[in-house]
């Protein structure tokens, strides 16, 4: 999975140390690569995505850069943490979000949040970048991650099923 190598290279280039996540099948290649490099990354499974906003805020205040990995349905669980902690306290981190409910989706329950997410990000004033073309995955990940830390703002990286093939690995 070259795209997964590129995502991890982008994080590594910006000194990401702490990766907190709620799993998604699409994210497995990224999670495997992060788990395989414990010298660079500490990988922490969460009980719920909003918990990760708190953990990353604390790490940021203490000088450790982190990233949050989740699927688009889980993004819905982060909203109050983003709105009342990360944004007013200017806490920066990239959010790598596997987009569900779009091309190739078979689960109706994934569709509403998948559709709402881009508008929710826009209404919160959070930058959003798409990972949908293999040749730009590393540079977009690197640039978005750098922007998140230096401007003190969460930045969304949306993993498209065009890139990943979606949950079933192809549609």
């Amino acid at each position, binding site marked *: 999975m070259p795209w997964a190598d590129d995502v991890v290279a982008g994080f590594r280039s910006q000194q990401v140390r702490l990766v907190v996540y709620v799993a998604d099948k699409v994210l497995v290649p990224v999670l495997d690569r992060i788990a395989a490099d414990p010298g660079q990354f500490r990988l922490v499974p969460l009980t719920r995505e909003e*918990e990760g906003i*708190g953990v990353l805020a604390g*790490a940021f*205040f*203490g000088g450790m850069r982190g990233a949050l990995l989740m699927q688009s349905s889980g993004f819905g669980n982060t909203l109050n943490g983003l709105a009342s902690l990360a944004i007013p*306290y200017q806490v920066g981190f990239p959010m790598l979000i596997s987009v569900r409910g779009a091309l190739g989706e078979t689960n109706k329950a994934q569709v509403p949040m998948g559709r709402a997410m881009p508008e929710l990000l826009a209404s919160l004033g959070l930058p959003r970048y798409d990972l949908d073309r293999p040749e730009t995955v590393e540079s977009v990940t690197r640039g978005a991650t750098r922007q998140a830390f230096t401007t003190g703002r969460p930045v969304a990286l949306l993993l498209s099923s065009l890139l990943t093939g979606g949950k079933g690995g192809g549609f």
Partner: protein
Amino acid sequence: MERQDVIRAVAARAGDALIVANLGSNAYDLHTHGHRPGNLYMRGAMGLTGSVGLGLAMARPDRRVIVLDGDGSLLMNLGQLATAAAEAPANLVHIVLVNGLWQETGGQRIATAGRADLAAIARGAGIAEVAEAADLDALSRVLDRALAAPGPWLVAVRIQERGASQAPNTDPMANRDEFMRAAEGFVAVAPQYERA
């Protein structure tokens, strides 16, 4: 024992520890009775105070991290206890003030006024060191241990409410910047610097 007694007892022993205070009364009273640069005052994000403490404790294993939480807030994010137990930072001291109420919104009774037992829940989650205190002597003994011995700790402190706290209108960014200087955390926003 009242909230102010707990806040004063913690502030008196804090040394160079970093303190994260839950939104509402805990933040207000910590500001009133023990303001210092190493205090972070939450203004929102109910339920995430302990999670902020966990992230801070992982980033700064060389410092004690004290969380001043409320029972209503902890009930909102019980999963954090399982995460803290799994990550097990020895420097984390999570203190929860248990009044059995949503104090900020008029004192409505919550589950901890009845059968819910946060210390038992913390033990069940696997938190290494769990202690309880219901009077000032017990609290003093527990704090002296929790601030010296390896954790993570969850300390449940039963309090009675006396009345409303003064409510300083702390500014998140002014507080954040002062706190990050105290925590030596600015390397996170400056890509040219990286802690060795």
